[in-house]
């Protein structure tokens, strides 16, 4: 039975884009609207050409009957280092955290290894899109206290090359905003170690640290000033103008087309960062804010979205409520702040739906949780017209499941990325099959 499935899957995978696929009898959960039963989807050229209850399969189409199964949009993890990290303990296999204070020209996309084993592992649980980050400074590797570490990329989790995986090679610019506020690395609580690594070492307290922060901000402002000068010089076609790759990379940021991501656990940092962004006239997205209720009003007023970290995390310190992390998404929802979930890792990306489910257990409405891993990330990352829901005209990134994807018992039966059915096998499944056969 399994072999048959494998054969079919591989046959399907052999279809190039351009072929027509017709999925029929699905219970579709579009996310952008209420669920509909008995729907068919017409997929061509990687997109959902049409969907409805009364569609008919065109001649020559590959027909997939999914009676009794559900169709969801593929899930999107808003913070990973997929493709950039293979084995956590081996630096040679890691390509995040470069050296250099201001490195906006670095692109995570072209360092992504499309054959990383991790893609096969995360696809199997329905993650079809991810934002992969060049890092946020500090921690291991060469990077000390990097201020701008490069451009994060929005990618599909399948493709022959990183070019094919690309959705947006510069979806955000990573800024390590200088702040003194601790990163909740306290006592028995605190973020998982790898998340702390991604965020960098906590700032030091004390008067000297204050001065150091102001110095850093001055440096940052200086860099932005230089970038603006460059922007003007370029527009004015000045005679002695020559291309500077760093400042070229800054232009979309200055034009408000590319947001900056900022890690900001404390409300005070959020406030400072918002004030700074206003002055600089740039767009921002906050990563892993913690004091959401406090910062909520300001975030909502300025329409600034946030990416929340793992719900399954320990409280910040000994005295924090035991369900502090579980209730963060609910906090964001109540504050009216737009949020998406990210796992801030590589190996736990496939648990993204369970991070969302935990939020539901602790009060977040079920639909909001689904949005946080589908349409919200799509919109936050500027791809709301392409991803995040099952709608005509969007990419055919689809999960076909036998249940709610946030339920751990659910199996994914078929997976489509950009209209192509992707094999649901990976290294782990291959090892399983091989050793199942050992007598």
């Amino acid at each position, binding site marked *: 039975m399994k072999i048959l499935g494998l054969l079919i899957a591989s046959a399907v995978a052999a279809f190039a884009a351009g072929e027509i696929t017709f999925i029929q009898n699905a219970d579709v959960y579009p996310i952008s609207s209420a669920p509909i039963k008995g729907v068919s989807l017409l997929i061509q050229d990687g997109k959902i050409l049409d969907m409805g209850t009364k569609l008919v399969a065109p001649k020559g189409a590959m027909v997939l009957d999914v009676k009794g199964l559900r169709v969801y949009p593929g899930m999107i993890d808003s913070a990973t280092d997929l493709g950039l990290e293979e084995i956590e303990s081996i630096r040679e296999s890691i390509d995040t955290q470069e050296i250099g204070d201001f490195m906006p020209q670095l692109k995570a996309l072209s360092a992504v290894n499309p054959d990383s084993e991790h893609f096969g592992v995360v696809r199997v649980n329905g993650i079809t899109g991810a934002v992969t980050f060049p890092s946020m400074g500090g921690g291991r590797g060469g990077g000390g206290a990097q201020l701008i570490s490069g451009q994060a990329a929005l990618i599909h989790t399948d493709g022959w090359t990183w070019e094919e995986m690309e959705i947006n090679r510069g979806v955000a610019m990573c800024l390590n905003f200088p702040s*003194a506020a601790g990163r909740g690395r306290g006592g028995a609580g605190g973020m998982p170690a790898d998340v702390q690594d991604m965020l960098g070492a906590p700032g030091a307290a*004390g008067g000297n640290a204050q001065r150091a922060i102001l110095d850093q901000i001055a440096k940052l402002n200086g860099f932005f000033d230089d970038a603006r000068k460059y922007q003007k010089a370029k527009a004015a076609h000045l005679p002695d103008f020559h291309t500077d790759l760093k400042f070229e990379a800054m232009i979309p940021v200055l034009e408000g087309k590319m947001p900056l991501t900022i890690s900001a656990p*404390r409300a005070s940092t959020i406030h400072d960062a918002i004030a700074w962004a206003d002055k600089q006239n740039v767009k921002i997205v906050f990563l892993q804010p913690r004091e959401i209720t406090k910062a909520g009003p300001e975030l909502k007023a300025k329409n600034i979205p946030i990416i929340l970290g793992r719900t399954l995390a320990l409280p910040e*310190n000994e*005295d924090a409520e035991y369900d502090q992390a579980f209730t963060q998404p609910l906090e964001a929802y109540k504050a009216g702040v737009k949020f998406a979930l990210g796992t801030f890792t590589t190996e736990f990306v496939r648990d993204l739906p369970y991070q969302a489910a935990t939020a539901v257990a602790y009060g977040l409405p079920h639909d909001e949780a689904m949005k946080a891993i589908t349409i919200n990330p799509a919109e936050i990352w500027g791809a709301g017209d392409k991803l995040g829901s099952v709608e005509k005209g969007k990419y055919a990134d689809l999960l076909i499941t036998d249940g709610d994807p946030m339920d751990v018992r659910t199996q994914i039966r078929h997976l489509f990325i950009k209209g192509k059915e992707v094999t649901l096998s990976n290294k782990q499944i291959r090892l399983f099959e091989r050793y199942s056969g050992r007598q």
Partner: protein
Amino acid sequence: MKKLLFSTFLVLSVSAIAEVPSAVAIRNAKIVTVSGPVIAKGTVVLRNGLIEAVGENVTVPADAWVVDGEGITVYPGLIDGLSTVGTGGGAPAAAGGGGRGGRGAATAATAGQAAAAERSWGPEDRPQTTSWVLAADEIVAGDGRVNTVRGAGFTTTVTFPTRGIFGGQGSIIDLVSGEKPAEMILVPEAGQYIALGRAGGGGGGGGGGGGFPSSLMGIISYVRQIYLDADHYQKVKEAYAKDPRGMQRPEYDRALEGVLASKRILLPANRLVEIDRMLRFGAELKQPMILYGARDSYLPEAASLLKKANATVLLSLKWPTPPARQPDGEEPTDTLRALEQRDKAPTAPAVLQKAGVKFALYSDGLDAPRDFQRAVKKALDNGLSREDALRALTLSPAEIYGVADRVGSIEKGKIANLVLTKGDIFEDRTTVVMVFVDGKKYTPAETAAPGGRGGPATDEPGNPGGNR
């Protein structure tokens, strides 16, 4: 005539010098004996370093120097139950947590260096152990700290070598300043000082680059092994002594000799869990023990554990203080636990007193008289009576160390260790006028003002009843 001479002497106030009259009589003073009722107006006679007589109607001998006790209170000299004064090093940074590589005299340094040079690969290497050392052998003449703490009213300290795990035995010393350190020794062997590395959860994690042991459990197992070895060693020695023929002689082990020579041990315990742990550990080792630190003994559970075990406690006067404030007014990262501790810790002496637990207070490195006095004041503000406070610094430590027949109160025949003050000894504005150690007279220097007592500006505007 003598009165005039003496007053002039007071006015001139030179730095600490010892005067050795043959007999001294302090006349018409208030005398707090500790062992008996307070004598409102009485006389104490000292001769040859001992108290010859004390009472309301004591005759002043003809050959005695007379000290006019008008307005003066006489107390027994204070006894510091756990100290490092006298060995020439600095004050320990934090006691109760143990002195891993702690400070000490030159001999201590070399011993420590020797230990550090060779990495230990197990208990057989006797890591961080100098159990045979006696503090008495490390006392140096001219340790400045002697003068300083005498200025607070201390005449006696139980000084311990505090390096490593088994630091060695402490010695009870009288704080006389002289040429011969040997003069100071009251009791050379007061008990073995054991430290268990950094307190609480901050321990090793066991990377173990520095050798065994590198974790708290490693240290505990090491101590356990030492006592097992000592037991075995003793049995073998005894058997060998009885009849050596045909028996392999036991190998000399000075670490074990040091441990066997100690009649009691000191174990650190600050947190409730540590108090619980050490009480059980001491019982397992079957050693008479004193717990030192005892910060959490303000908790009723701790006090009751201590009472049930009939434990003896040295309670540190270094009350926990708030951490330095964050620069940008950030919320302090305090835990509720830490806040409660800081709030309640100074109630510990009163709690122990009420529970009937045998305890003494020790300065824990608070050398400066004003720091010491402030710390005691905190205890007084938190329910400890003056009588109990005084006893916890005089007769109680004397009893704990078995020298109550010699020091700790003003009684005929005891050593002439006295503190003379203008005002109650634990009051803010009190001055220590004179200190007698072994009958030798010392006058605290005026220059001790910054650390001295009753200086012009005390930082705490007298707030009766404290700030609670």
